[in-house]
C-alpha cells in the first residue's frame, strides 16, 4: 500500500463518483428544461440559453475532478 497505488486508486474512484454525480444533476436539469419548453414552446430561446449556461457550470466541476485525477496519475508530487 505505497503512496503511488493509493493515489491511483483514489483518482479512479474520485473520477467515477464525480462523473456519476454530474450525470445525475445534468439529467435533472435537462429534464426540467424540456418540461419548460413543452409548456410554452415560444420560450425556447431563453430556456435553451439558461440550460447551456447551467450545464457548463456543472460540467466544470467534473472537469476539476478530471484535472486532479490527471495530476495524481501523471505528475504526482509525492514519490
Amino acid at each position, binding site marked *: 500500500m505505497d503512496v503511488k497505488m493509493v493515489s491511483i486508486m483514489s483518482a479512479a474512484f474520485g473520477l467515477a463518483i464525480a462523473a456519476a454525480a454530474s450525470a445525475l444533476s445534468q439529467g435533472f436539469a435537462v429534464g426540467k428544461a424540456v418540461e419548460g419548453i413543452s409548456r410554452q414552446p415560444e420560450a425556447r430561446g431563453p430556456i435553451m440559453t439558461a440550460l447551456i449556461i447551467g450545464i457548463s457550470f456543472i460540467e466544470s466541476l467534473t472537469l476539476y475532478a478530471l*484535472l486532479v485525477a490527471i495530476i495524481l496519475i501523471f505528475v504526482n508530487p509525492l514519490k
Partner: protein
Amino acid sequence: MLKYINLGLNLVMPAFVGLVIGVFLDNIFRTGQLLTVVFLFLGILSGLWSLVKAIIEIEKEE
C-alpha cells in the same frame, strides 16, 4: 450554438494555469506553499470572470 462547448473547459483551464504559475514561482522564490494557493485562487477567479464576460455577451445577442 456550437460556441457554448468551450464554456465548461474555460472555467477550469485558468485555474490550472494559475496552479502551474504558482508552483513555478514557488520553486524560484522558495516561499513554501503560499504563492501556489494565491495563484490558484487568482486562476479560479479569472475563470469565473471570463465566464461572466461570455454570459454578458450571450445576453447582448438576444
